């Protein structure tokens, strides 16, 4: 493999208060490649994944030791802008969590908060992303209806579309497979 590493974790320890959830994890992720983490439930897959875009920052009383690098930047350096980091490293969560907004607004959300004002571009990205998540044919006629009216599987694909819309460099997917058919997975990789 001569592809460069995209994300590297070195001796990563993670604590929920006094409880150590992750022990000395060193793992490299290649660019433009799917890496799957497999393990029994409760072994820390989600916790590890959430370390890779600093989502665990949101949980009070947690602590990180060790290093996570994205390209040559230290993710946990104090100079790093965590908002910018999360733009680069998108995430799809275990349970579908669409906003109580319309389907269109859900996908456009990431673009709008990132300051994109060109409405034609937003509309194009929304369509592209929903197509990439293999959801377009099911929702193209009701883009302005609430996302909460979709089925669980559709909601999950909507969340994937939402994550893809801002063209992140990396997408972290926390077991979305229960709601995702292989075809959609294939399309997202391509």
């Amino acid at each position, binding site marked *: 493999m001569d592809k460069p590493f995209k994300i590297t974790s070195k001796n990563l320890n993670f604590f929920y208060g006094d409880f150590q959830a992750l022990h000395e994890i060193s793992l490299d992720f290649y660019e433009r490649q799917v890496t799957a983490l497999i393990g029994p439930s409760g072994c820390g897959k989600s916790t590890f994944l959430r370390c890779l875009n600093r989502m665990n920052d949101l949980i009070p009383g947690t602590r990180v030791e060790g290093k996570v690098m994205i390209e040559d930047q230290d993710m946990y350096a104090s100079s790093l802008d965590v908002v910018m980091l999360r733009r680069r490293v998108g995430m799809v969560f275990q349970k579908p969590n669409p906003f109580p907004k319309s389907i269109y607004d859900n996908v456009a959300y990431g673009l709008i908060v990132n300051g994109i004002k060109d409405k034609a571009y937003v509309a194009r990205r929304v369509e592209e992303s929903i197509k990439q998540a293999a959801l377009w044919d099911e929702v193209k006629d009701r883009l302005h209806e609430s996302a909460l009216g979709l089925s669980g599987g559709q909601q999950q694909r909507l969340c994937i579309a*939402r994550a893809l819309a801002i063209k992140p460099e990396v997408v972290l997917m926390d077991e979305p497979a229960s709601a995702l058919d292989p075809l959609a997975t294939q399309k997202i990789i391509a």
Partner: protein
Amino acid sequence: MAVISGKNLKSGAAGKQSDITTFADSAQSVSGSHRRKIFQALTFSIFRVAAVINGLALFIIVYFMVTRGWRAITWTFLTQPPMDSMTKGGILPCIVGTFCLSIGAIIVAMPIGIASAVYLNEYARPGRTLRLIRLGINNLAGVPSVVFGLFGLAFFVVILKMGVSIIAGALTLGAMSLPVIIGATEEALKAVPDTYREASLGLGATKWQTIWRVVLPSALPGILTGAILGISRAAGETAPIMFTGAVFFTPILPTSIFDEVMALPYHIYVLATAGTEIEATRHLQYGTSLVLIALVLGMNLIAIIYRSRLRRRMQ
């Protein structure tokens, strides 16, 4: 309910007697299950009675107001100022005054209350400062309304030289409803699932964007309901405004926020205790109360309609 309980009791006792001779163990369990049923019925009855008392209280209040006050409600009553030492005429200045004070209180208290709740719930780190602020707010909620009135008199009217005016009264009412608004807003914010916040932050939104675009819109129905309920409660108070915004009598309608006004609750108090013809103006007192209740219920109704409309839009 009581009749059914009685039957259960009887059959329970009979069952127990006949069973004792044959199966001692099952008799125990049968009587046990009967006892549980009786207990069930009893607790249900207690809760039901409690609920009925609640409904009854509202019904009786409204019944009294309507039967005794409806004769007073005329076009003149609603559109004219009081006349002949307040024994005749209407209550227009009071309606306008209470309306101005309530709107003023909303304008003062809603932004501050919502902003405080957002700070407490979304930004502040748990710790001693947060506990102190919470303690302060809870104590503010327990301060008697007459103390708010005196505070308003000393601070807004005298020190800030606002005089007895709409603005001083509205500020006092606003200060009084702050704890209610903060409490309601915090509850509404807590009800917003954390997954919304995570999803938004995960898309590279800042904390403020998350609060403004996702958290607050989701919490808005709850915030508005709580806020308007708090204000409408305050709108019916006499003590906070009697030194700060409302006067005994003024036939002129306010033209600026520095004018003094009449107000419905204070007017009722005046008519019922300090008027020249207390007995002769009874129907006016009930009529005024009826208008006040209608105003407060009307505000609540607006809040409820608005909330259900917002909820429907989100689903």
